[in-house]
């Protein structure tokens, strides 16, 4: 079971990284061009999210009709339901950083392979930001998120 799970996760990650590379999401300048609605807007990256959500919808629809996943006892879905201050503040803080750099967590990790020093600096700072949050959350006994 563990071997199957690890292989499944590895394949999923590989496909994710390949998709990011193909889509153009690994180019921070293009991502910022997509966000630059008041400048020379490049809408092409909306097709990345559109294509991803459309495809994932089929998978998520299937998962609701299956009793359990292939290699686990149950589906592990987020339990939180309320749209609270933490969610909104976190999303706003993330959005600010995303706009500044043109990088979000997936592309930041996948870009390790490209060896761009500036992106590696971003990745190091991002990991530090995550660790700062999680250390504080652990101290306060808060629940860890699932995203």
């Amino acid at each position, binding site marked *: 079971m*563990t071997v199957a*799970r690890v292989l499944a996760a590895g394949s999923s990650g590989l496909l*994710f990284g390949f998709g990011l590379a193909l889509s153009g999401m690994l180019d921070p300048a293009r991502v910022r061009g997509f966000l630059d609605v008041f400048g020379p807007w490049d809408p092409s990256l909306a097709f990345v*999210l559109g294509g991803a959500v459309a495809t*994932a919808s089929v*998978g998520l629809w299937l998962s609701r009709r299956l009793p359990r996943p292939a290699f686990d006892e149950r589906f592990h879905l987020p339990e939180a339901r309320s749209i609270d201050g933490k969610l909104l503040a976190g*999303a706003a803080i993330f959005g600010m950083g995303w706009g500044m*750099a043109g990088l979000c967590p997936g592309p930041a990790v996948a870009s390790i392979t490209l060896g761009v020093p500036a992106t590696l600096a971003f990745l190091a700072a991002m990991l530090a930001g995550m660790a700062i949050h999680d250390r504080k959350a652990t101290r306060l006994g808060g629940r860890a998120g699932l995203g």
Partner: protein
Amino acid sequence: MTMTTYWPALLGGGAIGLSATLLMLLNGRVAGVSGILSGLWRTGTPRLANLAFVTGLVLGPLLYRVAFGRLPEAHVEASLPVLVLAGLLVGYGTRLGSGCTSGHGVVGLARLSPRSIAAVAVFLLTAVATVAVMRLTGAS
């Protein structure tokens, strides 16, 4: 703007959606990169599977190179101090908000989760506003 930029974007998005489908149907897990990445040091997470996902994610662009003979293009505009500040904000914000572009953006929207729809609206609007302010002030 030509179709040559739209097709790879759509197909790449399709690959990302398929990846999220695989992880959910096989392992029952949300393909959210910030959650999986921080799952490497949090307790109660499938650490080995998370490590495998992250390894696959790093190798993904190499698969692209095998297929197309070159690595994808990447141009970084931001200066080093801006990148470091942005990285801290992205790391802290995605953990506080329980997700990023993948967890909320792809899987959350596909599940029609109200929390994810709210999060995506907020981070998209904030990112657009940030880019607009930087354009107005000439910051980079």
